[in-house]
């Protein structure tokens, strides 16, 4: 298998096709418009479907329609566009439809900026939409990881009949790195005849399928929510993914960081190691489900004095870090918004100041 140098956005686009997803609806928004530009010609090569919708609102419902009709489908957007899709995502969760969303985060709130951020953490991990909905949220830290997570996202979405979200940022989308699309991550679409509106004849059936999220009867709605909750509990049991970096030794500081920010932290950790200061890192690869146990166990190491949640936001993941620690260690947050990525030097100074 050969490696190709690709821009993150284009690797995400290609990964979807390698995952057998031949349907893409999207609206342009910086910093991820390259996905649509790439697929506008690439989809024709694979006889797939490409459509630029008139708004993110409309796109989120094109996703719903296609997912309800039983095909693999995905879209990409960035922070304000994801906000516009929030209702549609809630509907997808309520109707139990599989689909893949990619958020290449940019600065907010409001129109914000076009540079990278990690400030949609709360939105993504709390399900984006109204009601008791959750998304399985994966956070890549490289173009390669983004490609692999896209390929994994489709069978995961089908396993849970739920939308799955990739949370990237403008740097991941824009940077160019070598990438390959592993054969072992290819997957066959699941059989959707039991619920999809793919046509009675298509199923060789007699009864129709209904895709819906309205349950006016209170007991029926509660039952639907209990079913959704059971899925999210199962995600917590089966889908936690994280990387532990430099956690073998006796570190005084534990950093929790994801995506682009985690790479800067690794650079700082390596530099500090050279200065005789040990720092461990837990890098969540799933933000929902959050690696509660891994973080708490890493923080509970006797040598560890403090946990630092480092994120390009005004403090969102720090709440989950505090939550899962059960008070076993103090927690501090460090971050920057506006699109400037904190430098390794800043992290080094931060670590030294915290012990």
């Amino acid at each position, binding site marked *: 298998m050969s490696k190709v140098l690709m821009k993150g956005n284009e690797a995400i686009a290609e990964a979807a096709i390698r995952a057998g997803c031949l*349907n893409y*609806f999207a609206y342009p928004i910086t910093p991820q418009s390259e996905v649509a530009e790439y697929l506008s010609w690439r989809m024709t090569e694979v006889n797939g*479907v490409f*459509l630029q*919708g*008139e*708004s993110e*609102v*409309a*796109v*989120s*419902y*094109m*996703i*719903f*329609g*296609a*997912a*309800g*009709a039983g*095909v693999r*489908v995905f879209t990409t957007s960035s922070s304000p566009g994801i906000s516009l899709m929030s*209702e*549609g995502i809630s*509907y997808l969760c309520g*109707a139990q439809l599989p689909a893949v969303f990619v958020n290449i985060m940019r600065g907010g709130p409001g129109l914000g900026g076009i540079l990278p951020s990690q400030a949609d953490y709360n939105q993504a991990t709390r399900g984006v939409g109204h009601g008791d909905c959750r998304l399985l949220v994966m956070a890549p830290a490289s173009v390669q990881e983004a490609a692999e997570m896209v390929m994994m996202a489709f069978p995961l979405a089908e396993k849970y009949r739920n939308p799955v979200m990739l949370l990237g940022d403008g740097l991941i989308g824009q940077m160019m790195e070598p990438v390959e699309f592993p054969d072992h991550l290819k997957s066959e679409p699941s059989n959707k005849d039991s619920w999809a*509106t*793919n*046509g*009675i*004849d*298509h199923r060789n059936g007699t009864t*129709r*399928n*209904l*895709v*819906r*999220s*309205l349950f006016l009867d209170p007991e029926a709605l509660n039952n639907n929510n209990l079913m959704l909750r059971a899925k999210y509990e199962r995600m917590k049991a089966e889908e936690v993914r994280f990387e532990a970096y430099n956690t073998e030794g006796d570190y005084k500081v534990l950093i929790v960081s994801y995506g682009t920010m985690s790479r800067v932290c690794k650079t700082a950790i390596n530099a500090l190691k050279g200065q005789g200061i040990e720092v461990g890192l837990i890098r969540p690869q799933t933000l929902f489900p959050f690696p509660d146990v891994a973080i708490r166990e890493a923080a509970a190491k006797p040598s560890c004095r403090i946990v630092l949640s480092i994120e390009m936001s005004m403090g969102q993941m720090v709440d989950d870090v505090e939550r899962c620690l059960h008070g076993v260690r103090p927690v501090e947050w460090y971050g920057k918004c506006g699109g400037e990525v904190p430098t390794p030097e800043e992290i080094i100074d931060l670590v030294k100041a915290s012990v």
Partner: protein
Amino acid sequence: MAKLFQRPKSMFDVSTHYCPGCTHGVIHRLVAEAIDALGIRGRTVGIAPVGCAVMAYNYIDCDFQEAAHGRAPAMATGIKRVRPDLMVFTYQGDGDLASIGMGEIVHAANRGEKFTTIFVNNAIYGMTGGQMAPTTMPNQRTTTSPFGRKTEEVGMPIRMAELLATLKTPGYITRQTVIKPKYIQKAKKAIERAFVYQMENRCFSFVEVISTCPTNWGMTPKDAVQWAEDVLLPYYPLGDKKTPESEVADGQVAAAGAA
């Protein structure tokens, strides 16, 4: 003795929840009859709106998706693009289509998405209890225009069929009504024609159906029929506004075909 009239096969054998004098029952029936006549139940997907017809899927027996308010044309686009062999229709009221869903219907029509839209226009919001709609008539009293619709404040009612007919993309755009039997026969033909255009993969098709809402108009069903004929039809003229065969130039709509 031969059975001359019966429930369409594509309708469930249940009573509907609609009000006395509501036209949804008739329109549902015409859609189901078209599905039966064309033999397409096995590959039809309906999209139910938010509105009184939110439970249209309880009455029409084919694959159905339940849409968010106004979004049915976007959902229909998604379904039709990925499964062009499926026959897709949306069924929407005036709030769903002409208010919150205005963007979706205009763009779907403009792209020429090959699905069929049934637009039930009764000049008011039904399900939510009688608020003003974009199609509410001047001076018409509703729960959010208690002194009557003041056009100097909120503008004139929107004529969707004419609006969509101005788009250059070919389509079948027509306005019908079901308030009296003589109109129902033409509406039935128009709805079937709309589905036939879809079967031919020809164009977007749109059938606006002027309807009654006796409950929220505060009238008896009989008075509602007359008010619709006397007040709505002059403002919302019946007939084909555009067919795939007619030409549209500079915003002028060709007078094509009989009502």
